[in-house]
């Protein structure tokens, strides 16, 4: 399945080919630990890591920011 991914931190878009159908599968493919990001769908609504994706769906990966 092909998913369009927007990486907020890098302000960069890329297409990712995954075997599964969940957000977690995208993170794994991109080698991103799920403990450092939150993820939104194309409507900018936050979704969980077990959110089921559809072909060509777009997600946005947003880094958690802790510094102050």
């Amino acid at each position, binding site marked *: 399945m092909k998913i369009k991914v927007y990486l907020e931190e890098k302000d960069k878009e890329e297409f990712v080919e995954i075997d599964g159908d969940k957000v977690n599968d995208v993170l794994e493919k991109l080698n991103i630990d799920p403990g450092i990001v939150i993820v*939104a769908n194309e409507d900018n609504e936050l979704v969980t890591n077990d959110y089921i994706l559809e072909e060509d769906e777009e997600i946005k990966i947003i880094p958690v920011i802790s510094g102050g």
Partner: protein
Amino acid sequence: MRYSRQELFDKIGKAGQDLLKKSRVAVIGLGATGSSSAELLARAGIGELILIDRDVVELDNLQRQALYNEDDIGNVKAEAIKGHLEKINSEVKIRALVMDLDYKNINEIKADLVLDCTDNIETRNLINEYCHKNKIPWIYSGVIGDNGLVLNFTGNYCFNCVFDNVKPELLGTCDTRGVLNTIVKVISGIQVNEAIKLLTKQDCSNEIIYFNISNNKLEKYKVKKNNECKVCNGIYDYLDGKKGNAIVKMCGRGVYQVKGRKFDLTKLRLKGKLTKYCLINKDFTIFNDGRAFIKAGNKEKAKSLYSKFIGN
């Protein structure tokens, strides 16, 4: 006269200004964002500010932390900033609390609104549980590199609903990634603007406001309640003292905070500069509430140095 330009602004007016004057706001963490937000709140005419911080001013703070100057180096931040703010607006009642916020002392925050300007997820979890239990709105802010975010919590969802899966130990810090002073000002401005909107009964954001200052891009992300959230279901592990570390790596330097029992600083074997709140030398800053900042390579080494020079 002092607030005339703010009162002219139709969304605030004289009625809004009166609401600000009657408000009590706590600012937790007086580093980059906190010092800047505290300044904006004081200038805006908040009636009472409670300023909380555990740290002392250091030279490398001056690049991004508002109001502090070279004369403040070595002084505790809460007291230093209180002195500066009193010169900016003597009408604001200011209470400075030099302490590491934990489940035992968090009840000292008796505020209408809490601004989170801390540098760690653990304290945010504690603030979240305290504010959720006591129905106090709070505003999370975070900055790193050229990015920052703000999120209001007013009761529809909580911090744990969104950030339950975060692994704090894997997050970047100012120490590893650096931070621009310009993003600090933007995020502080957004945070205080949300605070003023909330205190003057205007509609507030219920989205994550995420800003990158290199490309000047602002994104907003919709947040919703997680029905399985422990905090929303009344389970307060941080507030009950079941979660939380006695040893914490401080943001911005290779320093660990180790907590112990209270003691008399004058009876320590260590030598250094002694102030009202702490004793400072090259490798240690020891506070009279039992905390110590220790330069060490790792947690275990910090604990060992604490035991050796301060006690168990």
